């Protein structure tokens, strides 16, 4: 082995702790890069393959009741490859193991063999007999939550009639990868499932013989979805079409998109931070190494090694660290990737998960990482090239210190050791700034990740204790006359009932439009309130619309603007309404107005879509049973269960998330502080040993290095908060979608936690070098010139 290469290995062994600290930061960059890109491509690939294999539709439309004969016309729309008429209805679960209300989505089985759309992936059992009226296939998550196997019975209230079905099989569908129940915030496979029945069976139950209530289309490649949707809406309008949507608005697809968006944000934010800091650390450490080995460099040059060969030697040293980082990062990235895949498996129902082991991801990560490390080394290598051998072999010129900041010194009443700390920090301003920046980024990573938990808490608090204050909501299968509220109020346990109306509509402003449900509420609602951005409840306008912030932004509409509301139900009127206010809303897009005004502008009589209720806690069970049995009930949501499920899901992830982010931030803090401390010690070891000789105690001497580190860490805190705040703001923007927007609430506890974690990591790192300070050789230092 060439002697210089042997030196690389020996240097690595000698400086193993510093090398490892840098390698860990690099590894964090590689891991997040591999994880983020791997998970994103894994999710995308899995979804793509799933969609393709099971022929997931491109356009979806609900309709009240359209004759099957219409299908020929629909198939004739330009750009439609195939179309399937379906019956899709909501039923109520009636299971012995579940007192609380649950909903089941009833979907007619895909017909047409391999050409069918949204085909099922059968996991167990068999498909129902097409002629059977009671055979059913259920979704896997739901079956698992209730331990249902083929052969088990399933009680379902369909169209007000209780039916006993028999499960013949368990299946998955590309349509319900993310199976979110109506009115829910998180998938809950216990209270929401999907059941596929033969078309005849559903047609009989819902009186839809020769008709359909839902149509899905597969488009020819290159066909314009918007144009097809327009034509389809036109055709379905006379039959109560509620407006067709493309994949982007299909719930399951949209949630996956949101997840991909988050991964994308992670890949854009985290790896660059780690790689930048690693480059900084490489630069810091290598500069010091080159300074220490100055005479050796001069000697090597004097005996004939080229600058290039010596430069290459140091680059090799850095590359060796990079390789260690890449290796570690790839392993951890793959391991975390498998963990994330596990999380996906829990959240999303896929028949298979393509976890990408695409070598390209690793190769790209490795190249970027090695590039970052070598970039960090370039400065030092240039110094080497510029150093003439004769100069290199002479001892370096002593560092020039300057007496400045006298006023600060007096202000802080610094003793001489304090002056030493301050001057040393000012002597190498770039290194000091790098150290501060590195620690600041560690704080920033935590601030930028921890804020979300508080924000979600805030979102739950605002949504459920200020806005949706009801205990339960009963949504009718179809609009009912106003008096239905009295029937609801008479249900056992109901203490207060409030009506609401919900009409699907397309709201447009200029060229922008969105399909939403316009909510009608009493003038001053008590149980289900609409809040202004300042959280004050808003009165329902008589003559205008309240738009949620998200909708207003999407439509670029402001109070006073007029929007066109095209109702997609009943008389299907199209009216122009003024925007009379902007309301707060975190979930979905919302529009609201006073109930009777809504019915009036929509051309409807005094009807309601459902009621929100306040319940007597002690009579819950009786209420559940009665609500389930009430003939008009479409589905029932229970606020407490929704919130509990939401919190439960968060709790499952919060520990993992916090562990990962605290781990990542600690790696930065430890890496930066440890390297900084080692360099400070290497530069000042002689002075510190001299101080020990002069009678300074161990504590006083380590105090000098620790104070230098403390200055770095403390200066980094406010900067870290600021950068973290900036990243968080960017993430809020990146995360918000039509489905939800996360409120940006960042409390003092976020900054405090971030700082505490970073300070603890820094302290541990700093204390780890205290042994070195305590064992400084006092005698050695007296006998040698620096």
């Amino acid at each position: 082995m060439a002697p210089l290469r042997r030196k690389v290995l020996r240097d690595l062994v000698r400086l193993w702790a510093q090398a490892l600290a840098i390698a860990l930061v690099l590894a964090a960059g590689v891991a997040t890069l591999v994880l983020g890109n791997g998970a994103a491509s894994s999710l995308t690939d899995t979804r793509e393959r799933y969609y393709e294999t099971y022929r997931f539709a491109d356009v979806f439309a609900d309709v009240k009741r359209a004759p099957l004969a219409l299908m020929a016309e629909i198939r004739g729309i330009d750009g439609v490859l195939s179309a399937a008429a379906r019956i899709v209805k909501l039923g109520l679960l009636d299971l012995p193991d579940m007192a609380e209300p649950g909903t089941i989505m009833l979907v007619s089985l895909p017909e047409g063999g391999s050409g069918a759309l949204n085909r099922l992936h059968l996991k167990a059992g068999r498909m129902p007999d097409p002629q059977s009226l009671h055979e059913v296939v259920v979704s896997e998550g739901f079956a698992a939550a209730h331990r249902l196997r083929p052969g088990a019975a399933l009680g379902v209230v369909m169209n007000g009639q209780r039916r006993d079905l028999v499960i013949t099989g368990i299946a998955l569908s590309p349509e319900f990868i993310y199976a979110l129940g109506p009115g829910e915030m998180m998938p809950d496979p216990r209270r929401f499932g999907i059941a596929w029945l033969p078309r005849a069976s559903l047609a009989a139950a819902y009186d839809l013989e020769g008709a359909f209530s839902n149509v899905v289309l597969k488009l020819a490649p290159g066909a314009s979805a918007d144009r097809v949707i327009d034509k389809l809406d036109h055709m379905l309008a006379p039959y109560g079409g509620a407006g067709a949507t493309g994949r982007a608005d299909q719930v399951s697809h949209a949630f996956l998109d949101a997840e991909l968006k988050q991964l994308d944000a992670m890949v854009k934010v985290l790896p660059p931070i780690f790689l930048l800091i690693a480059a900084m650390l490489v630069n810091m450490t290598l500069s010091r190494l080159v300074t220490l080995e100055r005479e050796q460099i001069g000697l090597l040059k004097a005996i004939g090694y080229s600058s290039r060969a010596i430069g290459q030697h140091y680059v090799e040293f850095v590359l060796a660290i990079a390789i260690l980082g890449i290796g570690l990062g790839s392993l951890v990235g793959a391991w975390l990737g498998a963990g994330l895949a596990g999380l996906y498996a829990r959240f999303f129902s896929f028949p298979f998960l393509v976890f990408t082991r695409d070598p390209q991801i690793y190769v790209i990560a490795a190249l970027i990482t090695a590039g970052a490390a070598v970039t960090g080394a370039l400065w030092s290598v240039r110094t080497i090239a510029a150093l003439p051998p004769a100069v290199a072999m002479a001892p370096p010129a002593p560092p020039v210190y300057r007496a400045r900041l006298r006023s600060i010194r007096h202000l802080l009443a610094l003793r001489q050791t304090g002056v030493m700390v301050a001057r040393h920090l000012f002597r190498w301003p770039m290194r000091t700034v790098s150290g501060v920046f590195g620690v600041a980024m560690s704080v920033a990573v935590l601030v930028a990740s921890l804020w979300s938990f508080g924000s979600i808490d805030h979102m739950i608090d605002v949504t459920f204790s200020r806005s949706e204050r009801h205990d339960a909501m009963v949504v009718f299968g179809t609009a009912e006359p106003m008096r239905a509220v009295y029937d609801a109020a008479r249900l056992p346990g109901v203490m207060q009932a409030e009506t609401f109306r919900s009409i699907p509509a397309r709201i447009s402003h200029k060229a922008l439009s969105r399909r939403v449900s316009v909510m009608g509420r009493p003038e001053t609602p008590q149980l289900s309130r609409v809040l202004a951005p300042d959280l004050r409840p808003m009165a329902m306008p008589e003559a205008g619309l309240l738009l949620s912030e998200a909708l207003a932004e999407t439509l670029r509409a402001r109070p006073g603007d007029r929007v066109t509301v095209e109702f997609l139900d009943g008389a299907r009127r199209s009216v122009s309404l003024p925007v009379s206010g902007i309301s707060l809303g975190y979930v979905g897009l919302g529009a609201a107005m006073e109930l009777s005004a809504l019915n009036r502008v929509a051309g409807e009589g005094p009807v309601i879509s459902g009621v929100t209720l306040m319940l007597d806690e002690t009579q819950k069970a009786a209420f559940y049973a009665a609500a389930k049995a009430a003939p008009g009930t479409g589905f029932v949501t229970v606020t407490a269960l929704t919130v509990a499920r939401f919190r439960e899901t968060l709790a499952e992830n919060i520990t993992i998330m916090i562990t990962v982010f605290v781990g990542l931030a600690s790696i930065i803090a430890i890496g930066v502080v440890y390297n900084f401390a080692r360099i400070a010690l290497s530069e000042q070891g002689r002075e510190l040993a001299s101080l020990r000789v002069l009678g300074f105690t161990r504590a006083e001497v380590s105090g000098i290095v620790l104070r230098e580190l403390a200055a770095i860490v403390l200066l980094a805190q406010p900067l870290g908060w600021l950068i973290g705040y900036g990243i968080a703001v960017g993430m809020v923007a990146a995360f918000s979608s039509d489905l939800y927007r996360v409120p940006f609430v960042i409390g003092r506890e976020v900054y405090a936690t971030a700082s505490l974690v970073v300070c603890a990591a820094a302290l541990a790192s700093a204390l780890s070098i205290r042994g070195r300070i305590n064992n400084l050789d006092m005698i050695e230092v007296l006998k040698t010139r620096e």
Partner: protein
Amino acid sequence: MAPDPTPVFRAKGLTKVYRSGAQEVHALRGVDFTARQGEFIVILGPSGSGKSTFLNIVGGLDTASAGQAWFGQDELTAMDERGLTRYRRNHVGFVFQFYNLVPSLTARENVALVTEIAPRPMPVEKALALVGLSERADHFPAQLSGGEQQRVAIARAIAKNPEVLLCDEPTGALDSATGIRVLEALTEVNRSVGATTLVITHNAAIREIADRVLRFADGRIVEETVNTLRKAPSEVSW
């Protein structure tokens, strides 16, 4: 010099053995030694004769393998690390061959470094005046010549009003003229502060400025000479 000189230092059978691997190196082989208050002692001897080891042990920088050493009534060889630190801090001034100044502190600040932690220091200005460096007080070490740096080191050593002043090759890195300036500073300080002064040197010419000269060889004191007549540093030459 005090009329009834009491021993500041006593050492009895002082032995130091370094182990490196299986090898044992005897740096000191039973040194007996006494020094009176205010005495100026020059220690001579070739490299490896044990003189530095001896100075390090009586200076509280190193521990003995066997034997005893006392500073006044306190047994140095019985002290722990903490006790030795306190001893160095309160009683000992050191001057080294390579000055060991803190490069980030000015001359004044280097002296103040010690006065801040000493129990009965002299004013920083006075210490610098004693070594003739009042004019250069605000210069950093890098802006001072070798001789000036060494005089700052002496000022720093005496500023705590030490009972003992230990100097290991204080002129080793200096030319003759500068060395003499440094020795003048040392003798002046010895006289005015009354600190017992031990100076290690390779330079036999310096012997003439001492009260007493010890010669080390092979870990022992092999020769002890008392000068009845001390020369001034300016009278010696090398």
